[in-house]
């Protein structure tokens, strides 16, 4: 019981620290102020920070399955206090450093003195730590009270549905419908996210459009790889090769050198996607007969071969060699040139929506079931009448096509591409973000991309330690949360099936023992 409170408090605290370091207090505070019409940026910051705590306390209360008000509230306060303690210490530390005239921005670009002032309420560091912890504890109290009231007084189904969705609760008898269908709360969340996404580029400057665009390109890559690794269970390591094929297709077909073909960008998009998908099939045909580790090693080799070919002097006439291709063409529509970050953010968002739609639709179809069966037991899948090679190739081709799309947008946006854009690190990044975010989960992949590609961009000065941080993050994730940051319902149930069952049985008689 205590355990779940501590765990959720800890998670809430970590999420808040991420939010602070990501620059929620600086840029996002101003943005939220603009969007929501708040009186001061501090408002937006604290509403989002404490929202996280309310949410995690509600989760903790649900997981603890407690039946008394006192326990629920104590648990909520405890989890809030823990989050607050962690965040408070960070805030106190930052404030002390800032006061001691240490240039924090040297490492953390987003943390301006104003941003820190927002967090400390403008008081002394030690008082700020206490204040932050106290405020968090109150938020935790609120979260647990809200959740407990909801289950105790049987609030209207809709409210309950939203709350339960937030807590990822699920009743055992509705699993299939949940997995196959779209419950209203989730649809609503997606819609809200979409509106936010669609208006964001208008508020953001060049730098942020570029950074978030990069994150978005990795989201497309992640969603693609997720089909092969997460759904069909085939471990592929050289996925960056298909990204490279997309990028070089647009580069070679639209740039003045080395070929001077200079085709229209819009024609090149489908060509890049189809070429990447075809190369997926060509590679997949011999390779997909292998399983597990062997497949990973062979695809790893393929990724490196593509990069080395692009770099080699032998093909310098064709690919431009190590110097890459300059002046890659961009899109234009009705005479408007659209080759800046702003337009590309929208193209990338369209790409993400497309990839997410493909993933979601296939997941719940006959094709998705075939993939899942192959992931589960390839021999039995074959005995059940599934032509395994065909379905593995299909997964490979779709994933490669999405990588191609991402590559086309990448090269065209940067107006340049070269072999060093496609090092092994690209493939490893994509695989890591799928695992860290949560295999098989669309929001998970987005979150993974934000953490793995967004964070290093913000903590640019620490980029030397990037690999170290990745490694540590992966190890930590595998120990603490093997299902990923934002797992799909299915993954969660696979790994925590027993806990879910216990929770469900408590849900059937929620009001018992309340007096």
């Amino acid at each position: 019981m205590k355990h779940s409170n501590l765990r959720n408090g800890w998670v809430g605290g970590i999420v808040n620290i991420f939010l602070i370091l990501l620059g929620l207090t600086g840029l996002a505070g101003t943005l939220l102020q603009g969007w929501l019409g708040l009186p001061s940026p501090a408002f937006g910051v604290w509403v989002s920070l404490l929202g996280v705590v309310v949410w995690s306390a509600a989760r903790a209360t649900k997981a603890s399955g407690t039946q008394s008000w006192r326990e629920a509230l104590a648990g909520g306060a405890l989890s809030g206090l823990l989050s607050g303690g962690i965040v408070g210490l960070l805030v106190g530390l930052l404030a002390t450093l800032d006061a001691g005239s240490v240039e924090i921005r040297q490492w953390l670009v987003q943390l301006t003195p104003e941003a820190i002032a927002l967090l400390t309420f403008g008081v002394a560091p030690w008082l700020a730590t206490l204040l932050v912890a106290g405020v968090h504890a109150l938020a935790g109290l609120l979260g647990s009270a809200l959740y407990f009231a909801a289950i105790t007084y049987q609030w209207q189904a809709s409210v309950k549905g939203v709350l339960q969705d937030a807590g990822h609760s699920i009743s055992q008898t509705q699993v299939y419908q949940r997995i196959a269908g779209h419950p209203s709360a989730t649809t609503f969340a997606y819609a809200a996210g979409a509106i936010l996404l669609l208006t964001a580029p208008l508020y953001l400057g060049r730098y942020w459009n570029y950074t978030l665009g990069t994150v978005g390109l990795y989201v497309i890559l992640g969603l693609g790889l997720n089909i092969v690794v997460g759904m069909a269970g085939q471990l592929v390591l050289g996925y960056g090769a298909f990204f490279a094929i997309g990028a070089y297709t647009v580069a070679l077909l639209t740039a003045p050198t080395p070929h001077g073909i200079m085709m229209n960008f819009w024609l090149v998009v489908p060509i890049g996607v189809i070429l990447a998908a075809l190369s997926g099939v060509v590679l997949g045909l011999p390779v997909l007969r292998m399983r597990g580790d062997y497949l990973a090693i062979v695809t790893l080799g393929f990724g490196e071969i593509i990069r080395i070919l692009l770099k080699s002097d032998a093909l310098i006439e064709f690919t431009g060699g190590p110097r890459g291709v300059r002046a890659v063409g961009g899109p234009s529509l009705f005479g408007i040139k659209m080759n800046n970050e702003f337009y590309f953010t929208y193209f990338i968002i369209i790409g993400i929506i497309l990839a997410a739609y493909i993933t979601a639709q296939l997941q719940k179809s006959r094709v998705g079931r075939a993939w899942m069966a192959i992931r589960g037991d390839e021999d039995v899948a074959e005995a059940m009448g599934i032509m395994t090679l065909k379905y593995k190739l299909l997964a490979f081709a779709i994933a490669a096509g999405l990588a191609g799309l991402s590559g086309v947008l990448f090269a065209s946006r940067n107006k340049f591409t070269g072999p060093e854009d496609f090092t092994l690190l690209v493939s490893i990044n994509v695989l890591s973000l799928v695992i860290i975010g949560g295999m098989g989960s669309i929001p998970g992949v987005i979150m993974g991309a934000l953490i793995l590609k967004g964070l290093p961009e913000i903590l640019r000065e620490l980029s030397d330690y990037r690999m170290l941080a990745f490694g540590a993050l992966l190890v930590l994730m595998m120990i603490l949360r093997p299902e990923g940051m934002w797992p799909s319902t299915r993954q969660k149930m696979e790994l925590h099936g027993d806990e879910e069952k216990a929770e469900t049985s408590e849900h059937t008689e929620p009001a018992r023992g309340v007096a």
Partner: protein
Amino acid sequence: MTHILQAQSVTKQFGGLLAVNAVTLNVPTESIFSIIGPNGAGKTTFFNCVTGFYKPERGTLLFDDKPLIGRRPDQITGLGVARTYQNIRLFNEMTAIENILVGQHHRLHAGVLGALFQLPRTQREERQALEEAYTLLEFVGLSGKGDVFAKNLPYGDQRRLEIARALACKPKLLLLDEPTAGMNPAETDDMMTFIRQLRDELQITILLIEHDMRLVMGVSEHIVVLDYGMKIAEGTPAEIQSNTRVIEAYLGRGSVFAND
């Protein structure tokens, strides 16, 4: 009498070991046919030859007069052969109903485009498939457990689900590999009734590997005995019980059938 499965001197070799040695047998349509024999006699290997996982070195296998050797396992399933496994092999990370839906795979048609655009045809097909899956679940006595992950089902239910998944392939021939392994006598009796029901109600031919002699003698119409990959006897349960070679090679001292 027509034969749904005809095996003509089928031989499967692993290195120097003759796992299945020139086995000839003919399974009459709509019969319950058992293969028995000591451990390592080649029974499961024979199943793997029929379902296409092993390619026999010699011999022919005809199903409905169509050759099986050279076809892939999924193609053989498409012809109407389904199987269960000695050690249950369900898709553990899928729910019971999804396991059955996978069994229906080769009878459904939705491809990538159908799924992406949610064509009316695809939606109709999915609805029918789901309905049929629930019917099958009820048929094997698992109603209400459709949304439970296969790995969370109790042992007996997993056996039943595996049969339901095989039935979802709409087989003409069902291969059951030790369906009562690990079951108590009462459960074994249920299984015996269930196997008869499969044949009588669904007109499915049953090819059975089993060690439980009570079940084999109670349910089979025809029995083949394998030992060291070779067929050593063939006949009705009564004939097998009195066959001295079988008693020597497999059943031992004959006390097993003392009460007959």
